[in-house]
């Protein structure tokens, strides 16, 4: 019996397609997320908007909180570890977390290297701003890619930029001659074998989700129409005025992303979305997306 192969890692990512993964900080919030139809929850100590406002070092979630959440929900439980912090990843794997996010939302532990994700049985998801970054993470063993966006901003503009960039760079690969692929691989800073694979498939070899700034059903629809296969919602739910209703509305919005009447219907009774931030208001050295490479 073969466990922890790349195949079963990507297999779980496939099962999460067309769904919403919700950030939660308590077992109660996890229950609300499951009841609303989330496909998975992301257990973390503070949601990105609070990390941003409170400052300090953001680390992996406490083991007790993860166990409490695992005990209350039946859907997959994900957790975040710091970029390069493979000891946090080892601890979270020992807690039987279902997916690990090596995340720029937490304070990076290594400014040069990401985790060797092939060394783990637990699958990893990593953020990216462009195709080169996506393929470097896949080369290190990531089984799922998401846009970085700008976490905790409630502003979709960065996730859109990152998704468009990845899609555009993939389209370019599909029309290049084979002779041009090595130069492109050098330019993207991406493994040649993966560049060749994307040129052939026209898509990433692992699922491609959206994250960072999704706050409304319309945001979720926008990302799905731009090519995302699922969405992560962080601060957008628990920083809004009615988390359970908003959570349910975003779940329906992902399934019916191409139906404007349905999107209007699920948005009809929603109270205020999170306030959000203009990206220009965030000093460059405080932009989470700049973490990792």
């Amino acid at each position: 019996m073969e466990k922890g192969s790349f195949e079963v890692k990507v297999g779980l990512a496939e099962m999460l397609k067309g769904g919403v993964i919700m950030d939660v900080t308590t077992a109660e919030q996890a229950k609300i997320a499951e009841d609303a139809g989330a496909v998975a929850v992301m257990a973390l100590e503070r949601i990105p908007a609070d990390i941003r406002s409170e400052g300090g070092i953001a680390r992996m979630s406490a083991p007790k909180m993860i166990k409490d959440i695992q005990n209350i929900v039946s859907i997959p439980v994900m957790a975040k570890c710091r970029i390069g912090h493979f000891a946090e990843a080892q601890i979270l794997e020992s807690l039987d977390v279902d997916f690990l996010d090596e995340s720029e939302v937490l304070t990076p532990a290594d400014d040069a290297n990401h985790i060797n994700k092939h060394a783990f049985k637990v699958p990893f998801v990593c953020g990216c701003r462009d195709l080169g970054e996506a393929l470097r993470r896949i080369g290190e063993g990531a089984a799922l890619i998401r846009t970085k966006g700008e976490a905790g901003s409630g502003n979709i503009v960065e996730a859109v930029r990152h998704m468009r960039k990845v899609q555009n760079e993939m389209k370019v690969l599909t029309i290049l001659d084979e002779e041009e692929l090595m130069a492109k691989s050098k330019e993207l800073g991406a493994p040649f074998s993966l560049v060749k694979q994307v040129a052939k498939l026209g898509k990433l070899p692992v699922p491609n989700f959206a994250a960072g700034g999704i706050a409304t059903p319309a945001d979720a629809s926008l990302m799905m129409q731009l090519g995302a296969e699922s969405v992560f919602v962080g601060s957008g739910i628990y920083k809004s005025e009615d988390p359970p209703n908003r959570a349910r509305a975003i779940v329906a919005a992902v399934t019916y992303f191409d139906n404007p009447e349905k999107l209007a219907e699920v948005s009809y009774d929603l109270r205020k979305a999170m306030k959000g931030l203009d990206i220009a208001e965030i000093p460059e050295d405080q932009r989470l997306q700049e973490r990792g490479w």
Partner: protein
Amino acid sequence: MQTVGILTLQGDYDKHAQVLRKRNVDTRSVRYPDDLLNCDALIIPGGESTTMSKLMDHIGIRDEILTFAQTHPVMGTCAGMILMANRGGDSRVKPLGLLDITIVRNAYGRQVDSFVEEIEFKTQFGVEVIKGVFIRAPKIKSIGGNVEVLAELYNEPVFVRQGLHMATSFHPELSNSCAIHDLLISMIWEPVLAE
């Protein structure tokens, strides 16, 4: 040309479509009750059974699936099997009750216990061996008298059939084999032949 509907509320519906395309079968994504009208069979894919169960009620497609299932083949894989069972013992999922089986969700463990194992099953042409990909898979704890076990793993059923309905606790759509989808396609003709 036959058309196989794939429930496209959430999950790995695309993987099923890819398998069926290899067999030149038309596929249709089923998200609204009317989508079932021109389908000859239905697949309920892998994914999260709690999410799919809620979305079925959100759009109101449950009764249409039950009516469709009276006269058409239906196949469920993993979460799809949980949704086709008649007993799950978990209030978070409201199953359709198309198969007389009792299910325990995530019974092989969490993701770190997900695994790949060879599965043998009999077809009219002999014994097929396919790769069984088990992802946080459910177990069948008991089966009714009319349920036929088509494959077992460690002496427990993992592939069952009852009349026009069948289900697997693993993901044939993630293997390279079309054998289980071929069985579903052949079942489309059975009600016609029986008349």
